[in-house]
């Protein structure tokens, strides 16, 4: 009986710590579509659907992390000229800046639109700015191939945006941190330099973020560990910054959503009220239960004798 109560309380604790503020794919699966007509047409590095191949390679980087499990299915469907937000399809396509309804802002290389329902991802579209569809002169390219240095590395850009697709935020948005800091070397660092370093391959911080979000074990305990340790001063080893950095910034004393998502209340140390409830129930109910159980036994023994 007591064991059952403890199991229920432990399960509750884990469940409450499971949703992410920035969203998560609840079934760890996403089907992706590309547009061959709304694609790169000028950049010799990317045209003729080469950008699609590079994007698939970028997707596979994220899905081959040891300890994480996420399935990406490449649909044979081509969204053609009908790619849009709101159709429940996860699409990759290129549009001109300021083209309605997306109106991609000036200066944006790529934008990730995430549709969520109750913090569950239902659709993510990654849209690339057509005005960067050229080689050199700050266009999108494969950086480092002969002659390609004055441009933005497409594989880095798309690998970073795909990190957002999975629900990760930035490892850091601090321009002053050391160049050797693991948050800075991560693919999910907020800044991409035109002349490198490249954001690929994925780094430890990126990997840990995926393991937190989509543990291969299929159990949410890893996520719970990250939740419990989530605060800027007490981050557990192995807990990704990309997983929790944004959340710690919005740490809200006294209520709201923070940390790993829809937690009722969060105190200044980042422990949620479910943890507190668990503690109170354990301390108060356990002795009461033992007392009642003893009285019940004694009464029954008394009756028998």
């Amino acid at each position: 009986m007591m064991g059952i109560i403890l199991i229920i309380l432990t399960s509750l604790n884990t469940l409450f710590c499971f949703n992410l503020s920035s969203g998560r794919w609840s079934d760890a699966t996403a089907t992706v579509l590309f547009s061959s007509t709304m694609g790169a047409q000028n950049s010799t590095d990317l045209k003729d659907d080469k950008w699609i191949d590079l994007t698939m390679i970028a997707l596979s980087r994220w899905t081959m992390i040891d300890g994480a499990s996420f399935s990406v299915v490449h649909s044979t469907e081509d969204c053609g000229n009908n790619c849009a937000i709101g159709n429940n399809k996860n699409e990759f396509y290129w549009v001109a800046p300021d083209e309605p309804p997306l109106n991609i802002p000036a200066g944006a290389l790529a934008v990730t639109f995430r549709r969520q329902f109750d913090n569950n991802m239902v659709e993510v579209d990654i849209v690339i700015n057509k005005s960067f569809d050229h080689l050199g002169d700050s266009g999108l390219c494969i950086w480092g191939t002969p002659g390609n240095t004055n441009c933005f590395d497409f594989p880095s850009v798309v690998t970073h945006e795909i990190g957002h697709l999975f629900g990760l935020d930035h490892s850091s948005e601090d321009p002053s941190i050391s160049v050797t800091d693991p948050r800075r070397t991560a693919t999910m660092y907020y800044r991409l330099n035109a002349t490198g370093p490249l954001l690929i391959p994925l780094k430890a911080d990126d990997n840990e973020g995926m393991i937190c979000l989509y543990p291969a074990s299929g159990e949410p305990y890893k996520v719970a560990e990250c939740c419990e340790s989530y605060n800027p001063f007490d981050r557990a080893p192995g807990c990704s910054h990309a997983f929790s950095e944004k959340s710690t910034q919005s740490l809200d004393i006294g209520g709201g959503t923070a940390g790993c998502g829809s937690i009722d209340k969060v105190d200044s140390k980042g422990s949620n009220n479910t943890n507190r409830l668990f503690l109170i129930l354990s301390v108060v109910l356990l002795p009461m239960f033992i007392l009642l159980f003893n009285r019940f036994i004694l009464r029954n023994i008394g009756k028998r004798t």
Partner: protein
Amino acid sequence: MSMTMVELPAGVMVNEAKSIVNGKVEAVNYEKTSNMIYTNYTFKINTDGYIKSGDINSDTINIRTIGGQVGREKLDVPGFPILSQNGEYALFLEKRGNNYDIYGANQGCLKVTKESNGDKILSPCENEYANSIYVNQASSGKVTLKGFIKKIQGYQTN
């Protein structure tokens, strides 16, 4: 952020933006169309807040940005600015139909706070997207609204 941005040069920011204004957010509401969610801000421009007036001929304008939450559904496009109700801002704007949008997303958005001596101080809406005009000035201390306006006028060619 879910947006990879390149830094827009100061001259481009100033001259490509249709208007640059200083004012307050009076109301925030969300709008869901068949496939998009938008946030509408009713923005009241201060009497001395027409830094570059463009075609604005009213003291109240509607700023419409992509993203927001309606009921349980959310369209999350980090990198697009989120303004607070009653918050004061200096904004670079572009025209979209009858509405305005923030030019350069977060690069065109600066928060305004008032110091005890009455000076209005600027800070980026998101540090990661501080625009080049601000960054330039911030290297030598606090950025006042007055100083910022002067700087903008220096870049203005239209």
